[in-house]
Structures are given as structure tokens and as C-alpha cells.
């Protein structure tokens, strides 16, 4: 009798359909890499980042810097020497796009990350705690939201010296507000779910509940909005440059290039098409990546 009841552990372990234990994050990783579009997105982003750093260096060695002018040439269509054409000052568009990509990608990542971190924490706390705390926190958001952005940027630029860092700060300082609001809405609806009540019943501290239980569950719409924030951030940077408060010449960014291209859209369409395509490509990839992330992190999805 005893022999038949004793499980043969070694046998069991060697059976192939026993699944190994994994963690939530490993699961997510696994699902993410199975998603073809998401992988495509990651690859494209990697290639772009590489092109803008290393690729630009190569272009520069070949004599095509982003600030080198050729006044006699002026704007010209794509050719063998200038693969993407030149702008009215005779500068090579390819190197300008690559160089501009550095700044745009940096702004995109840093500002979005900043607004994400601040916004999610802030919104989660407000939504979770509710009541008076939520009221005060949201009123602060209202106040900051109503303040005129242009003056704020002008002030920053003037009081502190002009720097790229300042642009990040200015943009991050604006974008987190909407993120906070969205997160708060989501958290408020989650607060009354059973698993949260269970966590309370278990006696978990509020901080732990927020960090380990609430936030992973709001990641869905948050990630979607984050992928929307990146283009907004890049375009906000373009708007700041459009007003003359952004990156200084001869530095450039995709936003500036798109604006310059829009001005000359009819005569020199390549000035708009290429930076626009670069931006679009980045955003599409981010989009797919974001969707993949959201699907991967969705705790309710089945493992297969």
C-alpha cells in the first residue's frame, strides 16, 4: 500500500508537462517577446537610437555635420551626396535628422519618465486615500494646470540659464498633471475591488498596497497614455522651439525640423517628410511596444 501512495517525485519532476514556477515579471517578459509587433517596435527603436548616436558619428566623419552649410547649394532634393536632401542653408538633412533625433529621443524619454513617475505616484495616492487628501491634491493639480505655460517657460529660461535640462523640467512639469488625473480616476475605481479589500483585511500597510497591488493594476491605461505622452512631449518641445524658447541654433530637434519643414512644405517637401517620418516611425514603434507591454502586464490574461 505504502508504495503506491508514495509519489515518485523524481518521476514527476521529469514529466515534461509540469510547468516551472515563474514570477509575474518573468511571465510578462515571456508574453512580451512572443508579441511580434512589440518586438518589432523594440528593434526599430533600438535601430533609431543607434542611428542617432553612432550613425551620426559616422556621417560626421564623412564630412556631413548637421551645422555645415553650403549656401550656394541651398535647398536641394535627395541626391547621391545628400541622401535626404538639403535645407535652404545647404545643410544635409540626414545628419540633421540624426542629430535632432538625439535631442528628441532624450526629451521624449526623460520628460515622459519624469511625468510618469510623478504622475502615477501622485494620482495613486490621491485616488487611494480619497476624501480630504484627494480633494487637496486635486485642487493643487487644478491650480498648476491653470497657470499659463508660456510665461512659465519664459521665466524658467530667463531665471536659470538656457539648457536642455530646463526644457525637460518644463515639459515634465506640465505633463504629469494629466497623468495624475487619469491615474487617480483608475485608482478610485479599483479601490473598491475585492482584492484590495482582501489586502486591507490581511493588514497590509497602505504603502504596500498602493505600490504592490494598485499600481500594477492601473498600468494598462497608464501605459497607453504614456505612449501618447511621448509624442505630446516631443511636439511640446517643438512648440517651445517654435516660440523661440527651445533648443538653440545650430542645435536642432525633430520638432524644430518639422516646423521648418512645414513652413516650406510646398517648395521643399523633403524637409517635412523625413523628420516627420522619423517621428512617426518612433511613435509607431512606441505604440506597438506600449500595446505589447500592456498586454504582457495584464494580470488577468491567461498565461498562454
Amino acid at each position: 500500500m505504502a508504495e503506491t501512495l508514495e509519489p515518485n517525485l523524481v518521476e514527476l519532476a521529469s514529466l515534461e508537462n509540469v510547468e516551472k514556477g515563474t514570477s509575474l515579471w518573468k511571465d510578462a517578459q515571456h508574453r512580451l517577446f512572443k508579441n511580434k509587433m512589440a518586438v518589432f517596435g523594440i528593434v526599430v527603436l533600438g535601430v533609431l537610437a543607434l542611428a542617432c548616436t553612432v550613425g551620426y558619428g559616422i556621417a560626421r566623419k564623412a564630412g556631413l555635420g548637421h551645422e555645415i552649410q553650403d549656401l550656394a547649394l541651398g535647398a536641394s532634393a535627395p541626391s547621391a551626396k545628400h541622401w535626404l536632401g538639403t535645407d535652404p542653408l545647404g545643410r544635409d538633412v540626414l545628419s540633421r535628422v540624426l542629430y535632432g533625433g538625439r535631442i528628441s529621443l532624450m526629451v521624449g524619454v526623460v520628460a515622459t519618465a519624469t511625468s510618469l513617475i510623478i504622475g502615477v505616484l501622485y494620482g495613486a495616492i490621491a485616488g487611494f486615500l480619497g476624501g480630504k487628501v484627494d480633494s487637496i491634491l486635486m485642487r493643487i493639480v487644478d491650480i498648476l494646470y491653470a497657470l499659463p505655460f508660456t510665461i512659465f517657460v519664459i521665466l524658467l529660461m530667463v531665471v536659470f540659464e538656457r539648457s536642455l535640462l530646463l526644457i525637460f523640467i518644463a515639459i515634465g512639469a506640465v505633463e504629469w498633471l494629466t497623468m495624475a488625473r487619469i491615474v487617480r480616476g483608475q485608482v478610485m475605481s479599483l479601490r473598491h475591488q475585492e482584492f484590495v479589500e482582501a489586502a486591507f483585511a490581511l493588514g497590509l500597510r497602505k504603502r504596500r498596497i498602493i505600490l504592490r497591488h494598485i499600481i500594477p493594476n492601473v498600468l494598462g491605461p497608464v501605459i497607453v497614455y504614456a505612449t501618447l505622452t511621448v509624442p505630446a512631449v516631443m511636439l511640446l518641445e517643438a512648440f517651445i522651439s517654435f516660440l523661440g524658447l527651445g533648443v538653440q541654433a545650430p542645435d536642432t530637434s525633430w520638432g524644430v525640423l518639422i516646423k521648418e519643414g512645414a513652413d516650406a512644405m510646398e517648395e521643399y517637401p523633403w524637409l517635412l517628410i523625413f523628420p516627420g517620418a522619423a517621428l512617426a516611425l518612433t511613435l509607431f514603434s512606441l505604440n506597438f511596444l506600449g500595446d505589447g507591454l500592456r498586454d504582457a502586464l495584464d494580470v488577468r490574461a491567461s498565461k498562454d
Partner: protein
Amino acid sequence: MIDLRKKLAWKTFSERTLSYSRVFSPPGLFPFCLLLFAIVSCVGCGKRTTRVEIGNREQILHLANGSEPEDLDPQITTGVTEHNIISAMIEGLVAEDPVDLHPVPGMAERWDISPDGKTYTFHLRANARWSNGDPVTAQDFVRSYHRALTPELANEYKDMFFYVVNAEKFYKQEITNFAEVGFKALDERTFQVSLNHPTSYFLSLLNHHSWFPVHIPTVEKHGNLYQRGNRWTRPENYVANGPFVLSEWKVNSVIAVKKNPFYWDADQVRLKEIRFYPLERLDTEERAFRSGQIHKTYKIPPTKIDYYKANNPDLLKQAAYLGTYFYMLNTTNVALRDKRVRQALAMSIDREAIVKNVTRGGELPAFSLVPPKTAGYTSGTTIPFDIPKAKQLLADAGYPDGKGFPKIQLLYNTLESHKTIAEAIQQMWKKNLGIDITLRNEEWKVYLDSRKLGKFDLFRYGWIADYVDPNAFLDMWVSDGGNNNSGWANKEYDELIAEAGRTIDTKARFEIFQKAEALLLDEMPIMPIYFYTTSYLLRPSVKNWNLTILDHQPYKYVYLDPESGEVQSKSE
């Protein structure tokens, strides 16, 4: 097999989509909104009659006029956009000849000049009237200038009047009785001006709008005589003595003036109405021009100039404009203190390349400060484009090949064209002299503040003459000149300018100016880059429109010809 599956997929997809459209009915809201939008959109479908076509028929001129004016009171405003509208409504003692802007009779039908050149006696027309029927009298002028010189009004063009006896003293309140100032109404129709020194260009000065009269009783009726925000400039209150009078003012939308029947020369005026549009963006106004909404643009985006030259040259008008674009140098800056450095910088700019490839508006490279042939004066001194000499000068100053040259910054205000010129020059200095400068653009007000406080090394600047005379450019640079922020003060220069102000004989005067300009260009506190041109688009139906050097347009001669063979092409 595969196509069948695809067909099925498509069928289910379209079915699905159609069925889902039912999702959106709070009954019929969605289709209703769509219908509403479709109706609104389609109203425009098909051929429209454009504003320009209607205007041609009815003698209504549509002009783009840059930005929204600050106000329409000639004694408060300073800008070109305001001048364009005010000059349609108010006429001064003299008017402008439509071709070369020389003074012709305006409110005054004739005038006498005393032999010593210091007293001008103007005889006003008998039939000169304001748009409310009142006759224009000499008293109107006296009272207008009294207002202009009262310090409370804070008139920024007060300097214009300082040629007149005691005007400056009255402004500074050293005397308080305006009767002591050199403006006298000898009788209803005789107005006399007494000057401190004989001033040969005095009559040209009178063309500036700061000398225009206003109808004082109207101003008094609608508010404080010396305060801004007085409502007399509202369309229902405005009283004018010129060919047109204000009829409509919708902020940031349109300002309309219609023909003034009380104008003494109303028979000559053929236009019924002029409408001014504050289209700030160059690309918006160019598109408005193409889609038939305006007869004339204010300017033209530089990228489009070549296109029009190639495809529609008769629509593009380019004329010399009496102004110079230059960089002002901070002569107190360690690097720029030595005039050899300043000369080296000036000599190594390829101005031809800039006007040909960068600005492209038909501008002329500026090798002197005063544009050539200004009232007959052309500067004998010019700045050469001489890179070896510039290198030599730089080396002599202690910076061979730019080594050890401190970092300096070029400050300009936010505008695409300033940026491209600055970038080009930045590269030229790097290539030709080995000097690396940084560029800084500042938002307009901050830029002006920086200038005032001297917080700059190199400063982009431009100056349009207020009147046609070399003095308009040269007297800016005297030691205490309000616009001279270069830190350059030269007594010899001050004396030359003062002497020229006292000289009657034009030839002698111009010789003094030659000396002054030579001195200025040797010391180089400012570096001229190019002379302005105006470029804009004009419909062929606009007749009697002349290209003048100050871009002033006596509208009373202009008219519209509907038969001018205009092609309403959809994409020009």
C-alpha cells in the same frame, strides 16, 4: 480557398462595423451631427466668388497689414502697421507725392519759407474739412502739437518736434506756457512754425504721422486728452480729415475705412473702402492671397520668393526700403574693445552670399550704414570684403587665427530669418577667422531688456528711416543717442552731426555726413549687413500702386480695375 476566406473575413468585418454603428444612437444623435457637419461643409462646395473679385467690382481694397495695431491715434502710435491705416485717414500739412514721396500740398495749399530758413508759414485750404463737417483750422494744429508735447501723453516721437523753438523746453516743463513754443495760428487759415536752426529736410519730416493733426474736441469728448485708451478712436467716434474715415474695427479680425465725403479732394478718390486684415503669419497671408481673399500681402515668406520669381513674376513686387539691417557691438566688451577686432569681424562677412542665398529678397549688401542715394547722398566710405586683411587686423589685435579669442555671443530676437542669417555669419567667422561665437535667441521683450541693460556682446538690430535723409541713420549714434547701446561715445562724431544739423546748404551738409560716416565705419560700433527691401504680392487689378522707398502709399490715387485679366486660378 484563400480568396474565399478573405471574402468571408471582409464580409464579417463590414457587417460587424455596420452593426456597431447602431451603438451610437441616443436616437439619431450621431447621424444628426454628421448631417449637420456635412451641410456646413458643403455650403462651400463648388465655385465661390472670392473677396477679391467682389472687391474689384465694388472698389473695395483688401490689404493684409501685419499685426493688429495698438491704436489709431497718430500721437500715440509708433509702428508701421498703425501708420498704414492712419495715413489713409489723416492728412498733415503736407502730403506725399505718390512716386517719390517728396512733399506736396496737403492741408496746406502753399507755404512760404523765410530767407534764413527758420520760419515756415503754411496757408491752409479753404475747403479743408474734418469728417464731421468742421473746417480744418490753424488752431487745430496748434492744439494738436500742444497735446503731442505734453509730457503726460508720453509721446514716443516727441523728438520730432524738438526742431521747433522752445518745444524741448516745453516738454521738459522748463516753460509752461505753450504760447511761447514756435507754433502760431496767425489766423484761421495761417499756421506758422519757427525752428531753432534752418533744417533743409523739415518738410519731409512733416510727412511722418507724429505731425498729423487730430480733432481735439472729439478727443476731449471721449476721455482724458492725455491718456491712452481714449475712446475717440472707436469707429463710431473717429473724426478724420483725410480721404477715408474709420468705419469698422473688429479686434484681430478686420479694420475698415470708408471714403470720407468731406475730404477736400474727395473727387479724386475712387476707392469706396479699404479693409485691413491683421494676418500675422506670413504663410497664412500668402495662402489668403492665393485663395483670393486679399489684394496685397504685407510681406512674403522668403522660401516662396524664388517660386514666384519663376512662375508668377508679375505678382511679386520688390522695392528698396529705406532701412539697414546691422549688428550692434558692445564696445565695452573685452574682446570687442579694440576697433581692429570690430573691423576684422565686419570685413570677413560675405554679404553678397547672404543676400543671394539666405535672405533672397533682392536685398542689397550693405557696405555702409546709409543706403545709397538717400535723398541724393551716397557714402564714399565702404567696408571691403577682404579676408586676408581681416586676418591681419585680427592678428595685430593679438588673436592670430582666432587663437585666444574670448567667447562672444550674438543675440537676436526670435525670428526664422534672423536665425538663418546668424547661423550663416557664425559659420563665416569660424571659417574665415577661426572665431567661434555662440548664438542666443531671446524672446522679444527679454531681448529689448538685454539691449537696454547692455547685456550683450553682439546684438542684431535694424533701423528704418522715419524720413528721407541720411540724418535719420546717422544721428542715432551720438553719445547720448537713446538707441545707441553700443557704449561707443565719440565727441568728434557728436560735433559733426550737430554741425550738419545747422547747415543749410545741402552740398555742404552731405560733405559733413561723409566725414561722419567715414568715422563711424572706421570705429565700427555697428556692422551693417544689408539694406532692406520690401517684397510682397500684389494683384494686377490694383492700379496706381507705386513702390516707394518708405513703403508709404497715398491711397487716394489707388483704384481697382475689374477688367485686368485676373485669373482666379486655384493653384498658382
